[in-house]
């Protein structure tokens, strides 16, 4: 069973601070972590591999420094890391990102299952999984909270829906996106850390992937950001004063509308 796990480097959101003057996000860009949702995808893939054998590949599109995070993933059970990194990938929206990732998947070759996180916490789009699946011509199941059974030919799982749950079965290859409920990610093991130092790591440029650069990065992105701004709140918060009972009564008034 060969599994590809898509992982994204995101700013470690603890570091996010607002500039009091410009009201913009201050990020030093150096502190980054694996997108939390992707760590669940990785753990799930490693657990499947431990049962069925095979290989887990972590795939990312990002800046060269992402290698550190892919090696971290290899210390937690992934067998190899593949990084797509090129100036031509910069400025990608979800469509251009999923195109690049689809080339990475083809480069990796044989696979049975692709796992993405539900969403990346920096963009919150949750679009890459379904878009990547469609670009590869694969079916997808989003928001998987439990895998009931899996082998080389099919996967059965529980998907969390807006109104409850669906139990679904899909022939492989396919793509799933996973929720936090699915497992408890492990910490790196000592042998894992040793392995990760020399583990197979491959980095590919747009050229090496024979990418059509009209479909990558800024050029391949149908959406563009017009502007960003800080959301306005109705000025200063109004203080609710008085005794505790008066305060409680005022809150209940607001609640009743």
């Amino acid at each position, binding site marked *: 069973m060969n599994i590809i796990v898509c992982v994204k480097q995101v700013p470690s959101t603890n570091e*996010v601070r*607002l500039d009091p003057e410009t009201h913009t*996000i*201050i*990020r030093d*860009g150096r502190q980054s972590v694996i997108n939390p*949702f992707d760590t669940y995808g990785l753990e799930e893939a490693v657990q499947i591999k431990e049962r069925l054998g095979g290989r887990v590949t972590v795939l990312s599109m990002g800046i060269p420094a992402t290698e550190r995070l892919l090696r971290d993933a290899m210390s937690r059970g992934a067998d190899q890391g593949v990084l797509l990194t090129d*100036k031509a990938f*910069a*400025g990608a929206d979800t*469509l251009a990102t*999923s195109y690049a990732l689809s080339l990475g998947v083809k480069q990796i070759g044989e696979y049975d299952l692709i796992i993405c996180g539900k969403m990346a916490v*920096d*963009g*919150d*789009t*949750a*679009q*890459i999984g*379904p*878009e990547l*699946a469609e670009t590869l011509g694969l*079916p*997808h199941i*989003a*928001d998987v909270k439990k895998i009931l059974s899996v082998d080389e030919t099919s996967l059965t799982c529980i998907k969390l*829906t*807006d*109104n*409850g*749950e*669906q*139990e*679904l*079965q*899909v022939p492989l290859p*396919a793509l799933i996106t996973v929720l*936090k409920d699915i497992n408890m990610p492990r910490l790196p093991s000592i042998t894992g850390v040793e392995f990760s130092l020399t583990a197979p790591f491959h980095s590919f440029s747009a050229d090496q992937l024979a990418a059509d650069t009209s479909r990558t990065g800024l*050029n391949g*992105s*149908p959406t*563009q*950001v*017009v*502007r*960003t*701004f*800080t959301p306005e*709140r109705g000025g200063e*918060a*109004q*203080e*609710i004063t008085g005794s*505790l*009972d008066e*305060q409680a009564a005022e*809150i209940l008034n*607001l*609640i009743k*509308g």
Partner: protein
Amino acid sequence: MSGLVIDKQKCIGCGLCAGACPASALTMVDDVAQVDQAACVLCGICVDSCPEGAIAIVKESQGNTADYHGVWLFAEQNQGRALPVAFELTAKGRQLADELSTSLTVLLAGGPGIAGEAQALIAAGADRVLVGEDPKLAVNLEENYAAWLDQVVTEGKPEILLFGATGFGRSLAPKLAARWQTGLTADCTVLEIDKQSGLLYQTRPAFGGNLMATIYTPSHRPQMATVRPGVMPYPVLDETRRGEILACPFPQDFSPLVRLLQERQIQAETIADAELIIAVGRGIGNAKNVALARQLAEKLGAALGCTRPLVDTGWCEYKHQVGQTGCAVAPRIYLALGISGAIQHLAGIAGAQTIIAVNSDPEAPIFAQAQYKIVGDCLDVLKALLAQV
């Protein structure tokens, strides 16, 4: 030329952009920012950091958009009823269509009987409802819905196509956006037509809700967006409105790969649609006090929300977690008890209408987002509330 562009007239030489750039691609030369295009990764952080709006990411335009007309939206159903978000979208779509002097088409799909919902969507503002009524559409499954939508949308060529940002909408819309190779903006809270260009400006919270980003799709069609439920106002229905109802059959030669074995509908699993939320943070103190908050929520018919540390310590279940890695909520009233207001938590409450915050720390960041505040002990306030309901 595509890339990062600096308006040298607007640049005041403050250097904030150079300080913010994670790629060290910006330098100050003679008090004007200069970009090393080879080093720039187009992350956009400098664009946000510039107080003068002197930096932009631009790209050459392409594509042919003139053949696409009309505002369309997908009306999601559950168990044969169109969801509230379908009506919210219809009201918003009406407004957008009027601004563009074009018509509003609603795509309604579901199992046998779904056509019965069409008239209500017309009453909410639709000019035309295209109905896909088929047993294969009775349950929300992406492949079947994509097959039907692909057929009607490819033929009808709308300029705008909206989806509700429900779990299903956020899984279905990107599948179609990739098939049609067009842009899709997730989880929008504001939609407007830009007067000059006639393009759809889609605004969404980014970076945990402390920053809003306005996004557009200049040269691909349709312009697609998913819209957060509960954010657009629910319309007043006008039963006298008349419109067209057209049946569009499901493509019978289509068979999906994903197979539904079982579906369980569980009511009130999510607090996303709650109108009233009593939310607790670490300041609540202990699990016993959380139980008091739960009691208050039950008495008021409210949902219980919480911050992440409470889930981590097992005081609350994950389904109550509000924020970036939890649930995004849009209640009329959000009562925050002992919550500091970390950016990851605020990310989930950008859609809240009124925030009432109780915190013992007068400097707590939550107060900057709240409309009403009490500086004090949240347990005292909670007990006083319980005494009065």
